[in-house]
């Protein structure tokens, strides 16, 4: 009995001593500012800044390898708090919001089949590419809305729409979309091409009444190729978000009606 107690106590003592020594001599001393910055960040761990969670971003901030202000969820107040801790200026970065590049509602874009399976875009897309005639278009089964941490995405008339005011630009919907048609765009941009179909005009027209045909009219109306407001990929126009067009008339003149001025729900949501 006595040996048993002695040996167990001895093991405990040795283990405790080893841990104490390890903690004293092996532990990594962390910059205390990392904890302070992490506390100042919103703690949503959304990954919108491009780092693995708020802790990862805090480490990069303290190390000076990340710009202050990349946190979309925290906004300016958070950047200011971080700036106070680190003693650096908060650099204003453009807020980015998600944009669903499709405007083929149920009345405009044809559906080639009746899908009544599980209500999820990934499952629908795995079932012969989904029920939509246009294989590039939004299926509207809400895979993006399900992952949105802010509830900023609603499905209406077979289309996902992002509420710009609620979107924090975390990019979770971008990853969730099986059709890869969600993009993070600058919140200040107002003119958008709401189509992702790069096929030729007639092929697009066959499946959708509001698909981009690649007619280049938007380019011509915005000052020509030299102005560089649009990029063309196949027969698909894309807004050059590095240099977005400011003239909203361009969208109104689109013959395919696939361009929109601020498609986000600013009002009336």
């Amino acid at each position, binding site marked *: 009995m006595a040996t048993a107690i002695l040996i167990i106590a001895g093991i*405990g003592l040795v283990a405790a001593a080893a841990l104490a020594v390890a903690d004293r001599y092996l532990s990594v001393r962390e910059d205390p500012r990392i904890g302070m910055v992490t506390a100042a960040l919103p703690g949503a761990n959304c990954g919108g800044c491009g780092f693995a969670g708020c802790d990862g971003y805090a480490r990069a901030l303290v190390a000076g390898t990340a710009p202050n202000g990349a946190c979309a969820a925290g906004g300016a107040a958070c950047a200011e708090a971080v700036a106070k801790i680190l003693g650096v200026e908060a650099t204003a970065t453009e807020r980015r919001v998600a944009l669903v590049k499709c405007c083929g509602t149920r009345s405009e874009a044809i559906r080639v089949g009746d899908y009544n399976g599980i209500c999820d875009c990934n499952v629908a897309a795995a079932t012969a590419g989904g029920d939509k005639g246009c294989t590039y278009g939004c299926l509207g089964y809400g895979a993006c809305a399900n992952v949105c941490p802010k509830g900023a995405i609603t499905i209406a008339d077979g289309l996902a729409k992002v509420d710009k005011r609620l979107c924090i630009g975390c990019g979770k919907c971008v990853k969730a979309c099986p059709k890869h048609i969600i993009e993070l765009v600058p919140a200040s941009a107002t003119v958008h091409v709401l189509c992702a179909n790069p096929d030729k005009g007639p092929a697009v027209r066959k499946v959708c009444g509001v698909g981009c045909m690649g007619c280049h009219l938007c380019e011509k109306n915005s000052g020509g190729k030299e102005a560089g407001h649009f990029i063309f990929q196949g027969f698909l126009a894309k807004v050059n978000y590095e240099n977005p067009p400011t003239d909203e008339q361009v969208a109104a003149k689109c013959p395919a009606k696939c361009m929109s001025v601020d498609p986000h729900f600013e009002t009336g949501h």
Partner: protein
Amino acid sequence: MSYYLVILIGAVLVNNFVLSRFLGCCPFLGVSKKIETALGMSGAVVFVMTVAAAVTWCLDFWLLVPYGLGYIHTLAFILVIAALVQFIDIAMKRFLPPLHAALGIFLPLITTNCAVLGAAEINHAQLDKLSKLVASGAAAKSYLASFGEAVFFSFAAALGFALALVIFSGIREKLAHADPPRCFRGIAVALVTGGLLSLAFMGFSGLVKLPY
């Protein structure tokens, strides 16, 4: 060498730690929602189980068996494994930061996991048997061979745990899209699935003559 292969097949397929021995069910259900986290957990378990087996065998051989203290081995093992995992956590953070970044958050979770303790338990039973054989003067394998087998068995058992966890998390990723009745949603249907997986692994019984 073939004996090691038998141990491997026995521990991974026939007597799978999770699906046949029902050890380590907590992480099996807790971290099996995504394949990514399941892989991280598996790595941590393989690492800790192998190291813990080596340490507990030594403790058993040099302290517990000589003093006839086999009856308190569970207590001693818990103590040593818990301290060991904490120590590995600290040392890994210092010397292998990338490995710590990958496995770090899982280490505290398996400090006294029953799979880790279970492997040590089984090794203890083997050593106990062997020491009685030696005491009775019968021909037996050397203690060194027993040590190698114990460590390899723990490693193989951890691989079996990893296999079960990864298969299960793959199923659960698909299961997330399914539409079961309301009362089955979440952990309930996961438990049913785990049971079916366990049944499937029963098909491996009798594949090898179990040394353990």
